[in-house]
């Protein structure tokens, strides 16, 4: 394996040496988002939240647990705070995330803990809120191909368009990476049948953080120009994993065109055919340019 890599690196060095006078360009990201509440529910009752900042390279989809206290509010707080936060710079992203969550949770509870409320609302509030979370960051600075971990990048079509992404996932909101209609990465779930269990979620209460975050997945990967990264909350994610290539393609075209009414019609047909579960729906489509 080592010998093979050295040989490959030598070839790449030959290639890049001729390009070394050109600095690697910064990537940009086109983003489209879609969000809808479950059938019969007003939009204000939607407990999914999306936040996107392509300039900073940050996106999040958060799905508040229906049974949890002020779930929509917690979801929106997590999503907004994800894109506005300082960069995680330590060697241990899990510790960075935990420290960030502590601040976000404390801030959110400041808003709710002082309020007078009935015994039952207070009991629910005291348990805190919970949400499924998928947070993504992509570095706009392209990676030197020689530093790429992926030997698959060294093909005839090899180009210097790689960017590095990192995802933080807890619960059943998902990241999917598509390359030319092929699903090359799915996390934290890649099996449409895996969506029925009760996943561990991101809690707002500090005393629950350690146990919950033990289950967090933090994964990195690389993407090239033309790749599409999707973030989706669970009902759409399960649908996407089952959908055939045509349905995926139809869905993608609707999201890219940002035609809300047509997208809802499409999804209502999927609902009627029992291919989609009735739930809040959230999707973010990120194209690496």
């Amino acid at each position, binding site marked *: 394996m080592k010998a093979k890599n050295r040989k490959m690196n030598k070839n790449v060095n030959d290639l890049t040496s001729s390009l070394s006078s050109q600095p690697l360009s910064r990537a940009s990201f086109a983003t489209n988002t879609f969000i809808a509440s479950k059938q019969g529910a007003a939009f204000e009752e939607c407990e999914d939240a999306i936040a996107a900042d392509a300039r900073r390279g940050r996106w999040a989809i958060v799905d508040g647990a229906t049974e949890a*206290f002020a779930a929509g509010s917690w979801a929106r707080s997590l999503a907004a705070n994800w894109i506005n936060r300082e960069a995680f710079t330590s060697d241990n992203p899990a510790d960075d995330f935990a420290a960030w969550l*502590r601040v976000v949770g404390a801030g959110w509870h400041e808003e709710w803990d002082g309020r007078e409320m009935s015994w039952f609302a207070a009991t629910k509030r005291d348990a805190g809120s919970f949400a499924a979370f998928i947070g993504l960051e992509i570095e706009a600075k392209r990676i030197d191909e020689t530093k790429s971990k992926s030997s698959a990048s060294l093909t005839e079509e090899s180009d210097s368009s790689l960017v590095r992404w990192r995802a933080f996932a807890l619960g059943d909101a998902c990241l999917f990476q598509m390359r030319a209609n092929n699903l090359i990465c799915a996390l934290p779930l890649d099996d449409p049948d895996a969506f029925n269990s009760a996943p561990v979620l991101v809690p707002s209460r*500090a005393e629950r953080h350690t146990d919950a975050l033990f289950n967090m997945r933090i994964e990195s990967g690389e993407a090239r120009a033309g790749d599409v990264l999707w973030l989706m909350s669970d009902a759409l994610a399960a649908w996407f994993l089952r959908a055939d290539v045509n349905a995926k393609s139809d869905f993608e075209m609707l999201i890219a065109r940002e035609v809300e009414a047509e997208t809802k019609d499409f999804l209502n047909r999927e609902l009627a055919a029992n291919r989609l579960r009735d739930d809040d729906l959230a999707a973010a489509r990120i194209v690496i340019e």
Partner: protein
Amino acid sequence: MYTAQITRTRPTCIIFLVDQSRSMIEAFAGDTNVRKSDFVAETVNHTLHDLVIRCTKTEEVRDYYHVAIIGYGGRDVRPAFAGALQGRTLVPVSQVAEYPARIETRYKKIADPQGNQFERVVRFPSWIEPIGEGGTPMCAAFSEARRLLSDWIANHPDSFPPVVLHLTDGESSDGNPVSRGREIMDLQTSDGNVLLFNCHISARPTPRVEYPFDADNLPDDFARALFEISSVLPQSFRNAAIQLGVKADEGSRGFVFNANPSSVIQFYEIGTSLTSMTPHAWMDKGLFKDEGEESKDE
């Protein structure tokens, strides 16, 4: 069957039938400290607490359930709600939430990941008091449950079938309850028959039988009679049982004979599981009798 969605426009109904006869003031078998009536009242109160919290959406309570508590003892069958709900039969859960008879407050010590310690209030509302007097008019209790259910179903013909959770510590003193029990089980909505589950508790140390699928291991005629009038657990209830670590094969009935305190708790948890709602990961199971906190009544 047993798949109807439980919603505010299509709620379901839960009836707690509680034996309040004299023998209920005796202790559980093998435990001289815990009176059956005290433990059952506490468990029913905790179950109602959980139902209210399950229906609480931020600051409102959604009426997914209509609840009745029927106590029977002496010559009497009566609604068992105390406080402002006294005398009420079927009550929407929002009113159960609004009108507990009492709320006891305790303090629980919590530590955050940094090791900072603080206290948080834990609230123990109650709706029924422990009672134990007179005989066991079980047949009359079943008749009353049947009457309530009949009327309720007439107004809610397509709901998830009502559930009756019956707890008793001994034999009926007003006749064989089998035919009255069957009348309850014959009632139905379009989603299935009414579910009647029975939990028997005892002051005698005899073997426990839990969720059996046949009557083979039952010790006497009374146990067999209760088995006859215990509904088979639908799949979602079986799943809840299995999640609690309880053995519940296909065809298992909602029936426990000679239950001990923890199987009483499980009986009510399984009996109110009802839907495939995700388990409440945050429900602190240790809410019963936490040690070392002060207590004051509101």
